[in-house]
């Protein structure tokens, strides 16, 4: 992965240079956006609900035993908004959408469709990479906002119904509002924007450098997902440590 980091940065830079032509690619951006949202929404919903639920289940009884029931809403709220929703959604999207990007562009490369674009003076970065990166960098933060809300709801349901907590729904959200600020949610959303760019650039790059036949495509898909996840985790630490303290 690290030997290709220069190429990945170069691809990102070249994509930035094509940004002024975004309007011309708006149909493709919208198609990709719909694809990402439509393909992931149900999964995001289920995953987020249960992440919220399990965080409440793991932390709630311990806090209640120590007479810290009022902290449950805040702990669940902060954990989901600042960390779990952005990271888990990014990992989900890397697996669901990053793999699809690498496979689609990789097969276009293997079957000479990208060469065909070049012979027609159509820039593959403009035609293939730009719409995907734009779409994912809008869709993932939106999915994260949705995930945060569903996650909080999941935590509230468990806190209310679990006999070791029995924190009423309204109390859970009142406690959550006391601790969680809008800035915490914004931090998570900003992180997810960075993760979206990582997924988009890494996956498109992996697609563009695919060689060989079906096996090469398979290898590219695996590398795209694994490399995206590794970079997401590394950048998660960097962003949390230096930018979003």
């Amino acid at each position, binding site marked *: 992965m690290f030997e290709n980091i220069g190429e990945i940065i170069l691809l990102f830079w070249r994509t930035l240079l094509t940004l002024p032509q975004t309007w011309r690619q708006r149909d493709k951006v919208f198609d990709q956006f719909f694809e990402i949202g439509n393909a992931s929404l149900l999964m995001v919903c289920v995953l987020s609900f249960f992440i919220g639920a399990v965080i409440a289940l793991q932390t709630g009884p311990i806090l209640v035993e120590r007479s810290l029931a009022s902290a449950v809403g805040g702990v669940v709220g902060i954990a989901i908004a600042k960390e779990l929703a952005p990271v888990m959604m990014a990992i989900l999207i890397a697996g669901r959408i990053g793999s699809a990007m690498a496979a689609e562009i990789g097969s276009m490369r293997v079957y000479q469709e990208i060469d065909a674009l070049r012979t027609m003076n*159509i820039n593959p970065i403009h035609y293939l990479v730009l719409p995907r990166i734009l779409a994912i960098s809008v869709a993932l933060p939106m999915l994260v906002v949705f995930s945060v809300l569903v996650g909080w709801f999941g935590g509230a349901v468990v806190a209310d119904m679990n006999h070791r907590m029995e924190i009423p729904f309204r109390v859970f959200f009142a406690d959550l509002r006391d601790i969680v600020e809008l800035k915490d949610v914004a931090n998570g959303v900003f992180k997810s924007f960075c993760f979206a760019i990582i997924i988009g650039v890494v996956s498109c790059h992996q697609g563009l450098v695919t060689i060989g036949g079906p096996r090469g495509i398979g290898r590219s898909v695996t590398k795209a997902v694994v490399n995206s996840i590794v970079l997401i985790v590394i950048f998660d630490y960097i962003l949390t440590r230096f930018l979003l303290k």
Partner: protein
Amino acid sequence: MSENQNNSSGVGLVVRGLRKSFGGQDVLKGVDLEVKPGEIFVIMGPSGSGKSVLLKHLIGLEEPDAGEIFINGEPLTTPEIAAKYRMALVFQSGALLNSLTVGENVGLYLTEHRWKPADEIKKIVEEKLTDVGLKDAVNKMPNELSGGMKKRAAIARALVIEPQLILYDEPTSELDPVSAVVIGDEILDLNHRIHVTSLVVSHDRDLAFGIADRIAVIIDGEIVTVGTPDEVKNFNDPRVKGFLHADFKRDK
């Protein structure tokens, strides 16, 4: 679109000392050839002789290690010069974009460069598909087409560029004899109709001798001979004879 877009007259092509190696293996060992404007020039050679690599250099998909390519006397060294001339490559596989319909594939060049309004693009696409006998395939997806139809659709896509030079990579490979003749006739027809320069890379002897004005034989990355079909047929070199007259041993 440039002003001379509708003036489709062929361009001349000269290749001097073209060399290319991959991983230490020499694929092109100093290729020299000259293609005259408006002619059908066929490069023949066995598989692995460097034909397709040569073609990729001519269209700018590969950078040569050494050597020069001239189009109408101008060295093909900058994207600006390359952009000055309209060249199209018909890929061996067709290389149609599988996510687009045949019509969208054919109109892609015009749609992406926004040189014509949508209505006009639609008309041009229909016209080019009619030219290659695929009028009814406009809304089909590439995976619904046969091998021959894919190649004809790829030719239609090339025609939309109104090229001055069309490069064909193995246009009859994987085709039955009837479809191969249809493709060969298509190349001849285009040459007569729009006077485009056609450079065909093939190991199909019937196609080469059926359509070529001149033929070059490339073996192991070197041009062994260039001449008219008769001159090449009678060329006295064991490698060329071995390639042109290869036959089964059944009667022996």
